[in-house]
C-alpha cells in the first residue's frame, strides 16, 4: 500500500492504477468469451445494464440503503470496539473479565449471530446493523488492545506531571499513539462489514444490494449480479482512495520522512 513509490520504477501511481484496472477488465472479457454470455456476460453488457438501472433509480436506491447500513455498523463497531480494546489494554482486570467474551464473539460464526439477532429482535434494521457490528467489534477490540499495550508510558507520566485533563490526555496522548491501530482496524473493518451486510440483507431485509443479488440469483441473472457487485466495489475503491488514504496521510504528517 505505497502509492508514492515513484522514481525507481518510472511508473506513476496513476498509471499503475490504470494498468491494474485495465488488466481486470481484460481478464473479465476473456472469461466471458470462454464461458459465454449466460454464465459470464461481457463488461459492456454489464455496464449497459448498470446505466439502465441507474437511470431507473433502482440501483441508487438499493446502493444507498446498503451504504447507510455499512456506515451505521462501521461507526458502532469502531466506537465500541475501540473503547473495549483500550479498556482491555490498559487494565489487567478489564482484560481478564472481557477476554472470554471477545474470544466467544471472535469465533461465533457470522451466520449464528445474524440468525439469533433476527429471531430475538425481529426482522428490522436495528437487528441487521447490530448483527453486523457484533461481528466486527471483537476484531476491532483485539487490534486496539495491541495498540493500547504498545503505548509509551513515558508520555502518560509527562501528562500526569503536567496535570493534563482526561480529555486532553485522550486527545493528545492516547489517540495519536493508537492511530495506526485504529487505521488498521478501520480498513479491515470496512471490508468485513460490507461483506456481512450483504449476507444480513439476503437473510432478512426487503431491500439493499444483498437483497437484490439474492433476487437475481433466483432468476439466474448473472448480468445483474455483476452490475450490482461492480457498482459496490467501485464505491468501496472510491472510499479507499478518496477518504481512507488521504486521512491516513494527514494523520502521519508528523512522522519524519526518510531524506
Amino acid at each position, binding site marked *: 500500500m505505497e502509492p508514492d513509490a515513484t522514481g525507481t520504477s518510472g511508473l506513476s501511481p496513476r498509471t499503475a492504477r490504470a494498468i491494474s484496472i485495465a488488466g481486470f477488465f481484460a481478464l473479465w472479457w476473456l472469461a466471458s468469451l470462454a464461458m459465454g454470455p449466460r454464465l459470464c456476460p461481457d463488461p459492456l453488457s454489464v455496464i449497459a445494464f448498470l446505466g439502465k438501472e441507474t437511470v431507473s433509480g433502482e440501483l441508487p436506491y438499493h446502493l444507498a440503503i446498503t451504504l447507510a447500513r455499512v456506515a451505521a455498523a462501521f461507526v458502532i463497531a469502531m466506537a465500541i470496539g475501540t473503547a473495549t480494546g483500550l479498556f482491555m489494554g490498559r487494565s489487567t482486570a478489564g482484560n481478564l473479565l472481557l477476554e472470554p467474551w471477545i474470544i466467544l464473539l471472535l469465533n461465533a460464526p457470522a451466520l449464528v449471530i445474524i440468525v439469533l439477532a433476527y429471531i430475538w429482535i425481529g426482522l428490522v434494521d436495528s437487528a441487521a446493523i447490530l448483527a453486523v457490528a457484533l461481528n466486527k467489534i471483537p476484531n476491532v477490540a483485539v487490534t486496539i488492545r495491541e495498540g493500547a499495550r504498545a503505548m509509551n508510558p513515558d508520555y502518560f507520566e509527562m501528562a500526569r506531571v*503536567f496535570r493534563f485533563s482526561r480529555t486532553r490526555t485522550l486527545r*493528545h496522548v492516547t489517540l*495519536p499513539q493508537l492511530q495506526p491501530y485504529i487505521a488498521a482496524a478501520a480498513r479491515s473493518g470496512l471490508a468485513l462489514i460490507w461483506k456481512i451486510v450483504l449476507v444480513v440483507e439476503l437473510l432478512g431485509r426487503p431491500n439493499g444490494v444483498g437483497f437484490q443479488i439474492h433476487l437475481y440469483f433466483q432468476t439466474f441473472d448473472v448480468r445483474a449480479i455483476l452490475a450490482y457487485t461492480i457498482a459496490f466495489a467501485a464505491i468501496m475503491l472510491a472510499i479507499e482512495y478518496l477518504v481512507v488514504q488521504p486521512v491516513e496521510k494527514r494523520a502521519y504528517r508528523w512522522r*519524519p520522512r526518510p531524506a
Partner: protein
Amino acid sequence: MDVPVSQRMNIEGELLSVDIAAKAFAAASGEPVAVLKDLSFKLPAGRFTCMIGPSGCGKTTTLGILLGLDSDYAGAIDPAFAASRIGAVFQEPRLLPWRTVEDNVRLALPDAMAGRDLAHLFDQVGLAEFRNALPAELSLGMARRAALARAFAIEPEILVLDEPFVSLDEATANRLRDRLVSLLAERPATVLMVTHNIREAVRLADHLLILSDRPAHCVEAVDVDLAPAARTGEPAEAFIRELENRHPGLVLL
C-alpha cells in the same frame, strides 16, 4: 506553619521535608529489591538543590515519588509537593512527536494560563524560530530546550530536573546550563536536579545531597558557599576534592 502549603516553597528559609522509609521493586524473579532505604532530606525553598550519587542508586525513582507518579512506597513527603505547580524536565525530553514545539508547551499550561504569550520564553530558550517545528526536526539539545520551555511555561513553584544535560557535548551543555540560570533568575523556584556530574552540581547548586549506593540514603547534605565566580576553576576543584575525600566512591570525578 500557618502558611498555606501551596505558598511555602516560595518562602525563603522554609524546608520541604522528604522521608522515604523504604521503596522496593519486584525483580524478574519475584524477589523484592530495595531501592531506597531511610532516604530523608530537606529541600530549602526557593533554592537550587542537586542530588548526586552513583548511577542506578535510585535518584530517578526518588523523583518519580516526588512528582506523584509512584505512590507505592513507605514514608511521607511534604504535602507541598502535591499542592504546588511542579514543572519537570525528564531525562528524555518526552515531547509528543505528533505535536509542534509550541503545541507541546501550550498543552502543559493549566487552563488559567491558556493563551498566554510565550514569545519571550521561546526567545529565552532560543527556539523562537522553531515554534512550529515538529520534535523529530530538532536536535537533542533543542529538544531539551523545548522541554525546559515547557517546564517554565507553567511558572512552576517546584522544578524537578532529571539529568537534563546528559549526552550533550560539553559546549552545548554549558550553554544550556547558562540558559537555566537565567530562566531561574527571572522566575525563581524551588529546584531539585538529579545529576551524577559533580562539576555541574557545584556550578549550579546552593545545596548538595549526596546519596549512597543502592538502597540509597542521604549520606550528607552540604551547602555550596561559593561565589558565582568561584564555581568553576580552582576554588570549585578544591571543594570537589574535599567532597571526594569524604565520600570516596560516591563522588566520582
